[in-house]
């Protein structure tokens, strides 16, 4: 006797439609509640917004691959606009060596050495904005400049054109979506910035002692190939900036709109790490990631998914799935956000998550020490990005302690 194959429910929303890029909740909810796996007719892809199903797809690297691209483009039938990201768009076995090198370059021991330096930098940033007094644009005066200082410095990038790094990441995360008018319009600038970032990733342009130089040293020891080294450096630059900047913006926005949670953090600054992860769960800076089935069909939750089919993972929907989270829409430091999928999970889980956590933790520590209260001082403006939840401005009033 064979089990009848279920046809997944069809959802006709396009998550990339302009109205869904600003407020993603309605489409997240429709996809999540329609079924464990749905078919998105507008994009001809499968999708899931359920926490448990996202976890399953991310865990099952044997059947759901990244090598065909972690964006909407299907490398089985389309030529990627740039060489696939490494290790982000590599499956085992090719994935192993670059992933291992990055894991070691960004190890907890390395980060522990950076903490005091970054904390001093965070204290200085916070003191500067407090000296200006009154209302600040927390996006452009804290959330962007702090990571843009400490992280590229740690990579060993030159001090010039830091805002261009943010612009580059923004375009890269847009390019994981459909190649629509938005993408076409930015293609020229993307090509220019991409060429510039490529030169930054060369050995001679990376300061000694930084993450970038360590990656090249690993290549000299034969742990990755010399061809892989610049791509691995590039993945730090592409994936490590915008995600963190908008993650920190998300946490500042969360606290500015939840003053009682700020008081909890002030009472117990040890909550800083948890607060960041709760913000990553609540806001999910990276909203959408794709995996793709391999050469064989996959039997999955009663559905057969054919070969080379894209599966869209709505990270933000899973992080607010009521099946997993109590009162999922509440930003709550009293909850344990462990297990959220904002950094992914499994083999490809964000290798830089501890770096992001450290950046956020030192900045929150400095703020909690110096700021009695923060609140919105105007309407914040979100940015449009296909894959990221971004901010253009975040007007906030800081009341010094």
């Amino acid at each position: 006797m064979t089990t009848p194959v279920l046809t997944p429910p069809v959802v006709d929303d396009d998550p990339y439609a302009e109205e869904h890029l600003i407020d993603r909740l309605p489409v997240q909810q429709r996809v999540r509640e329609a079924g464990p796996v749905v078919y998105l007719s507008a994009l001809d892809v499968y999708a899931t917004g359920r926490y448990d199903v996202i976890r399953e797809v991310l865990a099952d690297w044997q059947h759901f691959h990244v090598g065909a691209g972690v964006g909407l483009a299907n490398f089985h039938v389309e030529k990627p606009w740039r060489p696939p990201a490494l290790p982000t768009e590599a499956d085992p076995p090719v994935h192993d060596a670059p992933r291992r090198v990055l894991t070691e370059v960004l190890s907890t021991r390395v980060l522990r050495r950076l903490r005091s330096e970054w904390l001093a930098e965070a204290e200085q940033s916070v003191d500067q904005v407090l000296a200006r007094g009154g209302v600040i644009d927390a996006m452009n005066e804290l959330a962007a400049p702090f990571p843009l200082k400490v992280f590229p410095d740690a990579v060993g990038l030159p001090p010039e054109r830091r805002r261009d790094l943010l612009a580059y990441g923004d375009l890269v995360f847009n390019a994981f979506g459909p190649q629509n008018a938005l993408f076409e319009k930015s293609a020229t600038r993307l090509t220019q910035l991409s060429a510039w970032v490529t030169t930054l990733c060369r050995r001679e342009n990376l300061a000694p002692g930084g993450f970038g130089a360590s990656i090249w040293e690993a290549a000299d020891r034969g742990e990755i190939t010399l061809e892989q080294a610049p791509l691995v450096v590039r993945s730090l630059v592409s994936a490590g900036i915008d995600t963190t900047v908008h993650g920190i913006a998300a946490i500042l926005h969360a606290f500015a709109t939840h003053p009682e949670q700020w008081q909890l953090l002030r009472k117990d600054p040890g909550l800083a790490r948890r607060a960041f992860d709760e913000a990553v769960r609540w806001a999910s800076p990276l909203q959408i990631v794709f995996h793709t089935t391999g050469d064989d069909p996959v039997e999955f939750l009663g559905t057969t998914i054919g070969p080379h089919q894209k599966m869209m993972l709505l990270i933000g929907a899973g992080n607010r799935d009521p099946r997993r989270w109590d009162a999922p829409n509440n930003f709550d430091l009293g909850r344990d956000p462990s297990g959220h999928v904002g950094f992914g999970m499994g083999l490809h889980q964000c290798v830089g998550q501890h770096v992001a956590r450290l950046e956020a933790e030192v900045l929150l520590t400095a703020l909690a020490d110096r700021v009695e209260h923060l609140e919105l001082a105007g309407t914040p403006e979100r940015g449009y990005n296909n894959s990221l939840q971004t901010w253009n401005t975040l007007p906030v009033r800081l009341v010094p302690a």
Partner: protein
Amino acid sequence: MNTAVAAARAGLDTDATSIQVVGVEVVAEGVVAVTLADPTGRRLPPWTPGSHIDVILPNGLVRQYSLCGDRWDAYTYRIAVLRETAGSGGSEWIHTQLAEGQILGFGGPRNHFHLVPAERYLFIAGGIGITPLLPMIQQADRLKIPWKLLYGGRWRRSMAFADELTDARGHVDLVPENEFGRPDIADWVGDIEKGTRVYCCGPAGLLDAAERASANWLPHTLHTERFVNGAGRRADDRPFVVHLQRSGLDLPVAPGTSILDAMAQAGVGVLSSCRQGTCGTCEVAVLAGRPDHRDSMLSETDRDAGDCILVCVSRAHTSTLTLDA
């Protein structure tokens, strides 16, 4: 698959520190292959060729065994154990007492013997040293990278997995010592071309010979793994106490419970993510006592320093462990 989904749905993320024997098979004279699975039928932590796991036997001995199965099988691990009558009893116990259905403690997987990219691989195995090389060979095949294997052993019937290798795509030289004597490594390797990597695993004599031969090779050509005897490292699946310095709490941690859960129950939550010791999110600083590291994440340096612990899977060698929490 459905088990995993059900577990995630229930919000259950049990910790991965025990493993069940699901198969025991004699594969050569004095060698048994053991197949292991998660006791609840869920996926095991992923691994890469060259990895080993710590197996914690009911008699308290801890042994490291290379994983020699197929990493594309997410649900089982395979190890192979040589009976060493002169050893301290670990392999003896496995050969005489181990049975299907038994639950053992385990840690890892960890890898100190990584397969790096290469244009061609030369593999040199001595006896049971074949085990970490098997998945490497499978990987070389998958990537269509040319390889050769020199496999030495005491005599043919003691050489495990030889039959698995003979129909492989590379070139295999089986060298039983009773028929051919000891192989000359330098002679077998010949001139090393750029882009070649040599992986060698086996008894100390073989590794020493490989290291002598490598004096004329380009740097970083030779990769070796020495089997370290874990004797003296007693496992502690016994109960222990975690003292939380900042909270001023003393928490008993029973076997089968993780430090992470004990802390959560006491209201001292630690942020975690994978609960398998693979991601590093739940790192906590250790102020006193000796951690029994069961994770896949920390480097040897970190493990030896003993100043941090991943509380989702690791335990304590000492009766008390003081943490900065």
